[in-house]
């Protein structure tokens, strides 16, 4: 569900998440578009090629033989001072993993959207968030959208974050495959002038680029202390990206009339006795479940993680402080911890608090399985029960138990 209110004067169109992403890319005026199709991201690339065929998108297009080359081509373009875009899903993301690590370690501010999808095996092309969890420690910034409008808006923010001279990091804009990539919603399309103004703060001249006038070497061999220095700088830049995401939210609202909450959207948390934590489109259903239960007097709220990497540890800890229990909704599996991935982060964040509270993890929506309102109402009720001290398993598999 769309949470940001549309301005009446905005150019509102009905489009799915892939088209919303394509519109955002068009407005950001990329110099290069590197592409390799994979479901459910493919219609995004088709829309960009359509824009180009219509003469609206003035970008060089590179059709490559695989995802590894797609990201590598984008890395090359950005290194030469351009703005580049590519997109992928699932196995495509795995297939570009070494280029993925290269882009971040080399501090290349490329933007890549991920229409999230389960990983094989077992074989499937269905929705899930396992793919982005598999690369979460790859040193990229990861934004996760809940609605089609937020996909468009997040891509605009992604270029501001990526190309900021104090950040210089690649950024993923992630949105649930099918649930958002193929779901049509009203989307406000900003004007080109407004986007140009918003992006004027970044661009060529504010970061090192390859040029014949002032040659630099790129990808130099690095040993020991210098290697540690680059890793240290990378970690610092991740934290600056976190701070910048918070301040950009206000700037974005001033420019486009919508605010999303920065790294976390806090939904009905002010008086909440229990807090739910989630990320992505299932949070829309979770909000409806919370609204419904509040009519019965259940005081629940939601912390929707919008910036998954770097993880908004301080803000989440503030939102968790004083709650009777915290429930975490995951659409992925962390094999090593016998839970979901987000749950591991929330547990780690809980260690920042003085007082302990019951934590419970709900795993659902794997491979496109339904996450219905009633299931999430049960999850909220379970979280409330844990807050009262009722025992139960730490990890609840929705639909299995």
């Amino acid at each position, binding site marked *: 569900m769309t949470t940001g209110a549309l301005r009446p004067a905005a150019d509102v169109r009905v489009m799915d998440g892939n088209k919303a992403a394509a519109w955002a890319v068009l407005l950001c005026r990329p110099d290069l578009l590197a592409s390799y199709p994979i479901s459910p991201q493919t219609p995004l690339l088709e829309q960009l090629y359509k824009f180009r065929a219509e003469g609206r998108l003035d970008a060089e297009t590179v059709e490559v033989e695989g995802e590894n080359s797609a990201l590598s081509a984008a890395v090359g373009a950005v290194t030469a001072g351009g703005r580049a875009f590519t997109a992928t899903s699932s196995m495509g993301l795995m297939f570009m993993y070494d280029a993925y690590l290269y882009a971040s370690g*080399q*501090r290349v501010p490329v933007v890549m959207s991920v229409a999230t999808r389960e990983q094989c095996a077992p074989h499937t092309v269905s929705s899930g968030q396992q793919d982005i969890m598999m690369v979460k420690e790859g040193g990229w910034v990861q934004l996760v959208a809940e609605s089609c409008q937020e996909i468009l808006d997040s891509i605009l923010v992604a270029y501001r974050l990526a190309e900021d001279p104090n950040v*210089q990091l690649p950024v993923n804009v992630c949105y649930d495959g099918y649930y958002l990539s193929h779901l049509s919603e009203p989307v406000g399309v900003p004007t080109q002038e407004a986007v140009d103004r918003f992006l004027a703060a970044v661009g060529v001249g504010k970061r090192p680029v390859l040029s014949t006038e002032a040659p630099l*070497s790129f990808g*130099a061999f690095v040993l020991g202390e*210098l290697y540690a220095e*680059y890793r240290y*700088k990378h970690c610092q830049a991740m934290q600056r990206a976190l701070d910048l995401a918070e301040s950009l939210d206000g700037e974005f609202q001033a420019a486009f009339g919508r605010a999303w909450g920065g790294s976390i959207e806090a939904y009905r948390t002010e008086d909440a006795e229990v807090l739910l934590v989630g990320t992505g489109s299932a949070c829309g259903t979770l909000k409806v479940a919370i609204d419904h239960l509040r009519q019965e007097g259940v005081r629940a709220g939601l912390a929707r993680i919008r910036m998954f990497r770097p993880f908004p540890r301080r803000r989440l800890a503030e939102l968790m402080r004083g709650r009777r229990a915290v429930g975490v909704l995951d659409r992925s599996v962390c094999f090593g911890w016998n839970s979901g991935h987000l749950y591991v982060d929330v547990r780690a964040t809980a260690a920042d608090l003085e007082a302990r509270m019951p934590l419970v993890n709900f795993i659902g929506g794997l491979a496109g399985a339904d996450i219905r309102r009633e299931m999430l109402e049960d999850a909220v009720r379970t979280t409330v029960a844990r807050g009262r001290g009722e025992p139960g398993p730490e990890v609840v598999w929705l639909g299995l138990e």
Partner: protein
Amino acid sequence: MRFRSPFEGAWADPDALLVIRTGDWRLERPVVREARCSHCGLCWLWCPNNCIRDRGTHFAADLTYCKGCGLCARVCPAAAIVMREEDGA
């Protein structure tokens, strides 16, 4: 925090790159028999380390950076370059 690089990522001034004295890695060194060298430049073209220098009448390796791979000796059509074992001196 004291940094050695002015850059955020592994970018570098190309001149400052020549800090690793890869000549230290060498087990054999190329010796050019100057009278045989036809000054054709094939060794200069092939050297993977880009350390062959034009000496005017002949080419020779910059031993500060030459790793001793021997490719120059292999491609030399005049057999002007021979590889000699480093004696450690």
